[in-house]
């Protein structure tokens, strides 16, 4: 305890990461009925967290990794430590999470205003912030896993925030269960490591992997299993469908959890034990393939949906796939940097969309456009910034990170990954601008009367148009837009900050960064521009069909629209194998065979009682006969 107050860094860590938990507890236990106070507590706590994160970043950015550790418990030879491990990566992530969470909570002050579950919302937000911040700086994989699960829990609660809505609670459940599938793999991987290696400390793992201190078979199996966790959390193929559904939650939640931070946790974990993963080429190859498939698949899905949030959701999946590709290809910095920039602009995109949704009470981009979405100037501008960043257009942050990734992929001997990434970039640009143009240039112009109608339909909000609520939402958006603009230019400081330490562990990772040339940049930019151009041709220009080329291929459209039938496949197999098959079989077995067997034994027992009771017939002499016979049999038995 004493150390806590003498060491400002530890104090910052403990306070910064655990205050949100305190705020959750306070809100749930005491201030539930006072929404205003609840939100203030929560925002206050997350502000402290953000400040401590920045403080830590500032304080530690050129120090060597810092480790705090204490024994949590031990069982047999297994020692479970509780501790913090602060290296550049975790500091960076801590800052990202702290800042974005803070912005989103501020934003929510406006967005969630008046919601009956306001206090609850902030409690869960705090829960999330606590879990995520702790996860980021966790010192061991087990600790990371614990908070990883808690993050998932927070996600479950937040997705199902509108629990009266069946689809929301369904989506929450789906998210949790799909994550669970990945997590069980993760868990098994950890167990495998415990058995094979005996230590789950992150630095120890990385060190052992880098110095071949781990047997190869343990390593590969463990890496693959742990990668399952990434697949679940970061919505990689084949567990990618939960994320679009997760958009049932409030938009700020989507911004924070399901794009910027929580889903990036998978990628973060990947990079956290990057040296460990990279010691297993097989696992890396699998990861690369999965990242690529995910990126392409979700890109196609995003191209056909009209739902604002769905587009960004698919896009998130796609970008996550890209990050996994980068990491799997050995591009440690590229992956992490893309994670950073993506966190910024994707949060921006969601929050902007949130403003539209809050304003127009619909998710359909066509209706928003029709109702005059472009009149909201600030969000419109910001969403455009975000889209440009997403498409990788200079000078927005996305450009830099995407270039880095392309550079890494180009260094791969097999150029197919690069081609795939470029194709993905085209699709990204296409679907983001498809959305932007829908908002900007609606099909039949803007409905004039909408304003009055609107005024009737939703009272209360309009008065605040430029008041507290609007600005609570607008300011975070503008900050994020600013970040998206400038973040790209700090690429090299960040790279230095990150690589400076990782180089020692894994020199290959660094070399790959510089494989790219001029032509790569041109190709990257032109891929983005190509996408935008197609989108302009189809949706932006005057007299555009506004249908998209995919509508000429209904089958393909349907395939993309239905998410490649993945959901149907899962549903069907769940219904057939689990519900229809095993469950009903086992239930029947329970009722009929086991229970029936037991009841049968009872029935048989009672029946034999009835049967035996015939031996006791009323006729005396039969009974006497039985007696005599028994004696006779006994005599015979003894005689022979």
């Amino acid at each position: 305890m004493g150390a806590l107050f003498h060491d400002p860094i530890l104090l910052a860590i403990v306070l910064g990461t655990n205050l949100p938990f305190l705020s959750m507890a306070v809100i749930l236990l005491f201030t539930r009925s006072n929404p205003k106070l609840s939100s203030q507590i929560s925002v206050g706590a997350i502000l402290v967290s953000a400040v401590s994160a920045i403080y830590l970043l500032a304080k530690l950015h050129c120090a060597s990794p810092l480790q705090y550790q204490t024994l949590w418990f031990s069982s047999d030879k297994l020692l479970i430590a509780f501790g913090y491990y602060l290296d550049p990566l975790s500091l960076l992530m801590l800052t990202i999470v702290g800042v974005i969470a803070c912005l989103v909570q501020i934003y929510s002050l406006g967005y969630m205003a008046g919601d009956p579950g306001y206090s609850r919302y902030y409690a869960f937000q705090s829960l999330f912030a606590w879990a995520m911040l702790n996860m980021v700086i966790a010192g061991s994989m087990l600790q990371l896993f614990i908070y990883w699960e808690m993050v998932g829990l927070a996600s479950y609660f937040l997705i199902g925030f509108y629990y009266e809505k069946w689809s929301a609670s369904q989506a929450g459940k789906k998210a949790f269960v799909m994550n669970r599938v990945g997590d069980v793999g993760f868990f098994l991987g950890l167990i495998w490591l415990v058995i094979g290696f005996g230590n789950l400390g992150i630095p120890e793992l990385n060190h052992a992997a880098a110095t071949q201190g781990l047997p190869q078979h343990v390593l590969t199996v463990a890496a693959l299993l742990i990668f399952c966790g990434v697949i679940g959390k970061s919505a990689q193929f084949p567990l990618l469908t939960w994320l679009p559904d997760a958009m049932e939650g409030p938009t700020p939640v989507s911004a924070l959890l399901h794009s910027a931070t929580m889903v990036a946790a998978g990628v973060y974990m990947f990079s956290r034990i990057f040296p460990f993963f990279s010691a297993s080429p097989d696992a890396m190859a699998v990861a690369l393939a999965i990242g690529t498939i995910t990126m392409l698949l979700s890109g196609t899905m995003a191209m056909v949906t009209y739902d604002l949030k769905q587009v960004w959701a698919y896009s998130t999946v796609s970008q996550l796939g890209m990050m996994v590709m980068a990491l799997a290809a050995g591009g440690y910095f590229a992956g992490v940097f893309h994670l950073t920039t993506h966190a910024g602009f994707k949060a921006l995109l969601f929050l902007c969309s949130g403003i539209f949704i809050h304003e127009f009470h619909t998710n359909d981009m066509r209706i928003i456009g029709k109702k005059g979405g472009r009149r909201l100037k600030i969000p419109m501008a910001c969403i455009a910034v975000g889209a440009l960043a997403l498409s990788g257009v200079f000078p927005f942050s996305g450009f830099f990170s995407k270039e880095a990734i392309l550079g890494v992929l180009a260094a791969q001997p097999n150029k197919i990954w690069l081609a795939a990434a470029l194709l993905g970039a085209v699709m990204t640009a296409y679907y983001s601008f498809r959305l932007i143009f829908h908002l900007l240039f609606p099909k039949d112009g803007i409905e004039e009367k909408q304003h009055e109608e609107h005024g009737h339909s939703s009272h209360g909000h309009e008065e605040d148009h430029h008041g507290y609520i609007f600005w609570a939402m607008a300011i975070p958006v503008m900050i994020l837009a600013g970040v998206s603009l400038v973040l790209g230019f700090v690429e090299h400081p960040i790279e230095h900050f990150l690589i400076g330490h990782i180089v020692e562990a894994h020199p290959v990772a660094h070399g790959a960064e510089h494989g790219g040339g001029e032509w790569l940049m041109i190709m990257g930019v032109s891929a983005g521009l190509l996408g935008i151009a197609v989108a302009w041709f189809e949706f932006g220009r005057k007299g555009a069909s506004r249908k998209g080329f995919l509508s000429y291929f209904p089958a393909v459209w349907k395939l993309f629209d239905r998410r490649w039938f993945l959901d149907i496949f899962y549903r069907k197999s769940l219904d057939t194998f689990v519900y229809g098959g095993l469950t009903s079989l086992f239930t029947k077995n329970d009722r009929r065979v086991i229970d029936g067997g037991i009841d049968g034994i009872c029935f048989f027992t009672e029946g034999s009682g009835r049967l035996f009771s015939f031996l006791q017939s009323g006729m005396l002499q039969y009974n006497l006969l039985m007696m005599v016979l028994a004696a006779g049999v006994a005599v015979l038995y003894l005689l022979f």
Partner: protein
Amino acid sequence: MEMAGFPILTAILSTTILGLLIIIFIPPEKTKLIKQVSLASATVGLVLCIWLYYAYDHQKGGLQFVERILWVKSLGIYWFNGVDGINLPMMLLTSIVLFTAIWTMWELENRVKEFFALIFLLVAGVYGVFMSMDLFWIFVWYDVSLFPMYPLIAIWGGTRKEYGAMKLTLYLLAGSALILPAIIYLWVAGGAHTFDLFELQRIGFSAFDQKMTFIMLYLGFGILAAVWPFHTWSPVGHVAAPTAVSMIHAGVLMKLGAYGILRIGMTLCPAGAQYWSSLMALLACIGIVYGALVGLAQTDLKYVIGYSSVSHMGVVGLGLATMSVNGINGAVFQMFAHGVMTALFFSSVGYIYDRTHTKIIPELGGLSKTMPIASSFFIVAALAGIGVPLMASFWAELLVFIAAVKVFPVGGIAALVGLIISALFMLRVVQRTFYGEKNPKWEHIPDVSGFLAVPRVILMSIILFFGMFPKIMLDVIQSTVIPFVNRF
């Protein structure tokens, strides 16, 4: 005759017996007084158990607070009580569950006197089994704890109560039909004519004797531990039982089975346990997956919990089957964690049932709106059931699976898959019961009052407390398990 100081274990036992006797002499109309007396005596038990837990020296380990008196000379029966790292958590669990269960039943109006008297009789048996180190007494207390279940379920129960009560009682006592011969067999085979567990432990039984008695003990106790395929009494019994009885039954009584396997079977017949360990692991794994899968199809809240208990007790069985320190640590911890968790489950379901008079899931729904606090208790329990970290059961499962994957890789992995299913079915229940449109039928129902929330909050806090500080429990468990496993 060894008597180290104040006989605290006998004192704990006598809190229940005294409670029982006092209640018998209170006129049945004074229900308030009866409840107060019950709660008071449960509180004394709780305080003593907590003190016991605190006073236990886990550095030293081994059996402490020993009381040993020769009881029946010609048979070698001793009044021999003591605690070590295995039964200490169980004692604590019992006192917690008893305390909360009595508090939960505060609103009972029907035949109050008999109810609490029987509850105390039941718990006296449970305490007795846990604290006793003499085979004879373990069996006596074991049976004492079983037969009050019959009236408790049949009088105050719900759905199909008479069937459930009869099935449960007969089933469990059929289990003891195997246990008693096994115990006497060990007594005879030992040759020393003593039921003292530790004296018997010193006798090396022949491999054949060990194998035979172990399987008898395993099947006998396994019935109570709801080992697949002897589990069907458990859901049926839970559904029929009143709240407090479900709490005690699933929370504590089912642990008696696993405890018996560990305490008698594995202690006295290590070679037998080794021989049958694959069977144990197989049944446990089937139980884990099977319980979860059948739980998916249930529409009655209590059935769901009943099957989840089957699944969770499978984890205990799997831990025991590994015969390793981690596995047994995890198993004992899981017994504790599951006890508290399932008590919370039943107490929250009990509240819902008391108010809505139904526990059929499709008839409920949207309860989160009308009774948010009651719902949150259930949800916390469900999360603990899923094995969410920072809940006590997570650590238990972690340890068990670490051991299981090492010893029985295939079974361990299959059981892990069961975790996915258990998540699916818990969430399914939560969703259908508490989420969704609010049901106008339940709108008038008040949420849990502060007074009635207390026991549930206690249970919830315990789950979280041991989830965050598992060391407090594991150090104690471990102090006994390590020397225990070293004997194998």
